[in-house]
Each structure stands twice: as structure tokens, then as C-alpha cells.
């Protein structure tokens, strides 16, 4: 296990290096930031002067060399749009994104685990039908629409929660629910099918025939074995939540990573795009390693070489 961890951590370096190269080339292949920084009435001369001032007239490999040698020292360059160091701008958004990601994961887990298990135990009953129906609906409703409906009902009509913005916990309820509903729907269906498969296994029949009470059969023997798939889907969802949930952030004016990244892409703000992609890549790799560790804890039979 320790060897595995050590190896995984060593692998981060070449992966980040390759990603940095890809993002560097792709960002430059998609357009010229100078075109967007000057207004309609600027002249060709203005554009040339700005290109030179930003160092964008240098050959690509020279620009990359400068970038990577600075990046190793934690300097990702100055954001054109904000005129400030890119890395702190990206890092200051992380708390908002992580906060929202964690709370919506908690909400979706709280909804999905009981509903998924119930649905599997009561297979083909009305309850199962209702839960399945709701989860299909939950998956089908776009976040954009759910968010606006929640605002209209809970904020405008009932005045229970603030409409938008980041502040106390009360500001988080609606955006976290908006995200949580969609995630819960997906997770409920996943848990249901996993549980169905497990409940048909021989060892469950054996456990029941030994007279073990049903709660222990379901909770310990069945669900514990189903946790692997729950952890898999949770880690996948978490990584996509961290990298930003643009639509929900936009609807609730939530200052997370998604808004920053999309604005940076629209503004061709190279320094921000590069810093954000590398930070997100790093987080995804770390979460994947942690997931592997959790697998191992859940199922001691799993071995890593």
C-alpha cells in the first residue's frame, strides 16, 4: 500500500507536465486574447503594440519555456483580465467551490442511500415505482430550471432563503439542493441496481437462513459490499463538482471556480486557464488516489502492486 501511494504520487509529476503542455498549446490555438482586450475602435497599431507588450509575439516554444520555468516556482503569470497573479486568483475561488461541492454531496448521499436501499428491498412495489420515477425526474430536470424554480418558490414567494450570493449557511441551501437533487437521482439508481445484484447472492441467502435479523443482513452484509460502487460514483461526482458547476454558480451568483474558468476562456485569459486547469488536474489525481485507498479499506481483498 505504501509503495502504491509512493508510486502514485511520483506519477503526478509527468501527468501534470503533459497536461501543462496540452493546455498551453490548446489555449494558444483557440484565438488571440489581444483581439478581445481592445475595443471596437482600436487600430492595427494598437493591437501590435499590445501583442508585443504581452510577449505574445515570441515563438511558442520560447513562451512555453518561460511559462514552465516560472510555473515550477509557483508563478503562473499575470491574468490579463484582472492584472494580478493567476494562481492566487484561482486558489481564492476553491473554498467556494469545495464548500458547495461538499454540501451538495452530503445532501445527495443523505437522500440517495436510504431511497436506493428501500427501492431495492421493495423491488417492483409501488414504493419502488415512485422512487424510480422521482429519480428519473430528478435526473431529467436541468439544474438551470430547478435553481430558478427553487428561487421563485423559496425566496420570492416564501422569503425563506436569500436569492443569491455567497454568505452564511442559509445562502448555501438552495444552490446545494439544486446540485444535490440531480446527483441524488443518479446515485439512487446506482445503489438500487447494486443492491439488487447483491441481495440475490448466495451469501445473503445463507445469512438470512442463519436467522440473522434483516437489518444486519441488509446493512452489514449487503450494503457494505455495495459501498464500492457508491464510493466510485461519489468520487466521480466530486471531481466534476470541484472543477465548477457553471450553471448552478451562474443562477445563484455563486463565486466559484466554474464562473472564473468560463470567464477566463471567454476572455482568453491564458494565465488563469493554465493555472486553473493544472490545479483541477492535481485535485482530480489526488481524489482518485484517495478513492483507491478507500476501496482498499472497504474490501481488504483488493491489492495494489
Amino acid at each position, binding site marked *: 500500500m505504501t509503495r502504491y501511494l509512493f508510486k502514485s504520487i511520483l506519477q503526478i509529476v509527468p501527468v501534470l507536465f503533459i497536461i501543462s503542455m496540452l493546455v498551453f498549446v490548446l489555449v494558444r490555438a483557440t484565438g488571440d486574447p489581444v483581439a478581445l482586450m481592445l475595443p471596437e475602435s482600436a487600430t492595427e497599431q494598437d493591437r501590435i503594440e499590445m501583442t508585443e507588450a504581452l510577449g505574445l509575439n515570441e515563438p511558442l516554444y520560447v513562451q512555453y519555456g518561460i511559462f514552465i520555468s516560472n510555473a515550477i516556482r509557483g508563478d503562473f503569470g499575470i491574468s490579463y483580465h484582472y492584472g494580478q497573479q493567476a494562481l492566487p486568483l484561482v486558489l481564492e475561488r476553491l473554498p467556494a467551490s469545495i464548500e458547495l461541492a461538499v454540501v451538495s454531496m452530503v445532501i445527495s448521499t443523505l437522500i440517495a442511500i*436510504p431511497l436506493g436501499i428501500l427501492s431495492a428491498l421493495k423491488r417492483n412495489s409501488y414504493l419502488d415505482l415512485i422512487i424510480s420515477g422521482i429519480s428519473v425526474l430528478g435526473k431529467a430536470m436541468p439544474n438551470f430550471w430547478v435553481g430558478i424554480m427553487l428561487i421563485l418558490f423559496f425566496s420570492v414567494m416564501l422569503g425563506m*432563503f436569500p436569492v443569491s450570493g455567497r454568505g452564511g449557511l442559509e*445562502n448555501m441551501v438552495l444552490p446545494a439542493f439544486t446540485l444535490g437533487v440531480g446527483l441524488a437521482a443518479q446515485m439512487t439508481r446506482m445503489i438500487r441496481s447494486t443492491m439488487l445484484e447483491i441481495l440475490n447472492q448466495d451469501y445473503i441467502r445463507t445469512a438470512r437462513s442463519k436467522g440473522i435479523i434483516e437489518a444486519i443482513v441488509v446493512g452489514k452484509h449487503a450494503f457494505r459490499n455495495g459501498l464500492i460502487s457508491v464510493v466510485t460514483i461519489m468520487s466521480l461526482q466530486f471531481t466534476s463538482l470541484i472543477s465548477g458547476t457553471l450553471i448552478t454558480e451562474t443562477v445563484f451568483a455563486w463565486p466559484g471556480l466554474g464562473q472564473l474558468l468560463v470567464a477566463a476562456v471567454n476572455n482568453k485569459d491564458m494565465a488563469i486557464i493554465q493555472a486553473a486547469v493544472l490545479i483541477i488536474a492535481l485535485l482530480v489525481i489526488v481524489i482518485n488516489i484517495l478513492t483507491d485507498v478507500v476501496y482498499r479499506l472497504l474490501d481488504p481483498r483488493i491489492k495494489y502492486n
Partner: protein
Amino acid sequence: MKNYLTKPLLFVLLATVLLIVAACSSNEDTGNSEDVDQGASEVEDDEKVLTIANATDIESFDIHNNNNTISEAVLINVFDYLIKNDPDGNKVPGLATDWDNIDETSWRLTLRDDVVFHNGDAFTAKDVKFTLERVAQDSALSQYYLYQEIDEVIIEDDYNVTIVTKNPDPIFINRLSRMGSGMLPADYIEENGFDHFLEEPIGTGPYQFSSWTRDDRVELVKNEDYYEGEVEWDAVVFRTIPEASTRVSELLVGGVDIIANVPVADMDRVAGEEGRSIITAPTRRVLQTILRHTDGYVTSDPIVREAIDLAIDKQAIVDSIAGGAGVLTRTSVTPGNFGADPSLYQQSVYDPEEAKRLLEEAGYTSEDLEISFSSAAQYGEYAEVIAAMLTEVGFTVNLDILEATAFYEQFNAKNFEEMFMIGIGNSLNDAANNYGRYLAEQAEDETDYDNPEVEELLQSALVNMDPEDRESQYQQVQQIFAEERPSIYLFQMEGIYGVNDRLDYSPREDEMFIVEEISLD
């Protein structure tokens, strides 16, 4: 069976209850249960707070490196300009009390001697020199291109400066009455560095920086030492709410007082709510289609251009898509901008039958009348309707609606073909700003518009220091443009604001939110 059913159910119930309790208790914890009504601002309850919501955030507190109206609308409250625009666009004293054009390239300015920055430092000629020379010399700044005309700022004494321009510059005063001339604190920046200034910016304006959470809110508080006396509000919050329907909801629940860019579809929802109103006001932006005069393009024929103009029912477009928020015009230099020709304002032509007749008479068949028409996605609806109107009179329109980024890249690369549509503002308040792209050198490969008379008028007006003569030059250009149609002007766009009735507020034509002009009703 019962046993394992009840446990999970209880679990869900418990979790939900916990969540709600947590949400409500945190409301109490902050001791600010009015948050829902006041927006989640960190200001005291009894303070007089104004909250305004825009769709986008400022770029930074560097007034030289911002390039949009929304940024300026916020920053103008922190940084005073040397010369100000009153609501009618007249130049009035700001930090400079007097200005004189002593020779063709020199301007003498007298400064106020009772102004201090938010940290207590006195405002002097040194700050003027620092500010203007910075923006005039650093070509990486996005405002540089508007200030590169400045050659040097000479300090005569603490409260008198002479500014020397490279060429005669008739719009110099306009440059001094916009964002780039917001005065920066020279000593503060030299001592602490620019990065520190960006973290804790100071200016001389009526409101001073309190906090900024990017893409969320800028909070300003009153400047107790403002040179014009007591200011109106204790605090001002500029919120960034990108989604229009969320802005509307915030206005309805009282979380914000003013919202910009109300979608046409939501106008009734706001107007129907008690205590809320919709206010529309003209902006300097004119929506227009720009046509290619290059040989080989069908739009090089003046008859075709006239037919396009006649085919478009501008009033119908304003009424049906813009929610009535537009004023028809045949010039892009609207009233309030120097050089405007009032005879072309509130005018429009529309006669599809005449358009058909002109094209028929000139012998055009439908194969000849194929044109490409590009537009940015934000004007997509307008573009679709215009394309349909042109099809009615016999054109085949290849409509190309592009994302904003892609559109502006194409625009700057001059890649459009027969026709494209764009809304162009006027950040200098002067006709010179409307015609830069029609000077022969700039027009090359874009419109390829080439009229020696226009070229001479425009070149001369750029350096003509006689205002009357200069005004008449621009008016002549507008008349020629109305005849030759290098572009077809659709309408002057109006801003649509949602406002809480507790305010006495009239939107400005330059779209600035000058907080001192907004008061409680």
C-alpha cells in the same frame, strides 16, 4: 421487516430536520435576520445602504486596465476624474477647476487644493503626472490607446499642471473626463507597490473601498472627508448576478435596489410588482449593420445597400424584440455626443415595395442577391428577423450567428463578408470615436469604404481645434453616410433598469451609476 424500513426513513427525516435547523440557526447566529431582505451584505442594519446589481463584475481596481462600461460605472464612485460629465454630457469641474488650451498641443489645468485621498494624503499635481503618464506610456494597459496622445505632464506647482500632447487633439478634454483620468495616488503606489494598491485601492471619490469578492460583490463605504461635503449613502454594494432572472428575483424580494439589463420578457413581472418600476433610458450604443463596399461584393452597389435599408422595418424590431427600448436613428452620433446631427436622429426609412422595385429595375435576380450576414449571439434574435425581412424583398441571406468571443475575433481580423451587425458605443462622447474604422487605412479589408471627401473631412476633424468648424465637418460626414450607407443604423439602444420605488433615480445616458445622483425618494 418493519425494523429495517423505519431506520433509514428516520435517518432521512433526521437529516432533513438537521439541515433546516442548521440553516435557520445560522440566520440567527449572524444576528442579521434581515439578510433575506437586505442581500447578504456585511453592513449594519441601521445604515443607509444602496445595492446595485450588474451582470458582470469589474475587472480590477486598476482604472487603466478596465475596458467596459460596467467597470467604469462602479469605479467612478471611488476615483474622481479631472473633469466630469454632468447628466446632460456637459463638461463640469472635477478635480480640475479650470482648463485652458494655451496652444495647439498644450493644456493648462488648475487643480482643487482641498482634496485628499482616502488615506489622508493630499491630492496634488504629482498625482496627475503619475496617473496620466502611466496610461500614456504602458502599451500593455487596455486604456493606453486612448491616452497615447499625451506626450508629457509638466508640474508647474502643486496645483497647476501643463499637459502636452503629441498632436493637436480636439477631444483632449473628453479624454480627461473618463475612466483613464481617474486620479491614482502617486505616493501610496510608489511606497507600497501596485499590487498592494490593487488589494487596498484608494482614490479621492465620494466612496472608498471596503471589500471585493470577485464575481460576487464590491462593497464601498462613504468617504467622510469628501471635498464636496457629506455624501448620500453610508455604504454602496455592487453585486454581480450574471443570470437575469436571478437579478429580477433579487429586485422583487428587496435584496437589491437597482438592476441593470432587465430582459424584455421580465419587464411586466417587474412593473407588475408593487413598489418596483421599470425605467428605460437611451445609451450611447447604436445597433448597426456594416456593409462591404469591396468590388465583387453585391453590397458594393449603392442601390443594393439602399434596398437593404428600405427592407428593414426598424420600428417593428424595436417594438417586438427590444420591448420598445430603442430610438430610431440614421446616424450613430446620437444627441449628447459632440458632432451630432439632430436632423438624422429619430429618423428611419422603411419601404419594402420600393426596395423590391429598386432591385428589379437594376436587373438583379435572386442568384445575384446572395449575402452573408454575421452577428454575435447576443443580437441573434435581431439578426434572424432582419434576415427574414431581407428574404422578403428577394435576398438570399446566409446567416451566421457567432458566440461573442468568436464574433469579436472575426471582427478584429476583418473576416466578415457582405454584412455584419454590431452595437457600437461611444466612450469618448465625440463623433471622432464613431468614424475611426472608416478612415481609409482602417477601412481597408473591412468595409473598403473609400470616399476622398469623407477622408478629408475626417482627417481634418481629428486635428481641428475650432469646435464649430469641426462640428460641421462631422455633420457633413453623417449626411454623406446617410446617403452612401457604409453602414445602416437600426436604432439607439436603451438601457432597461428595474428600480425599487424607494429611490429617486434617473439612469444616465453614459450608463454610469453615479451614486451621489441617486437618493432616497
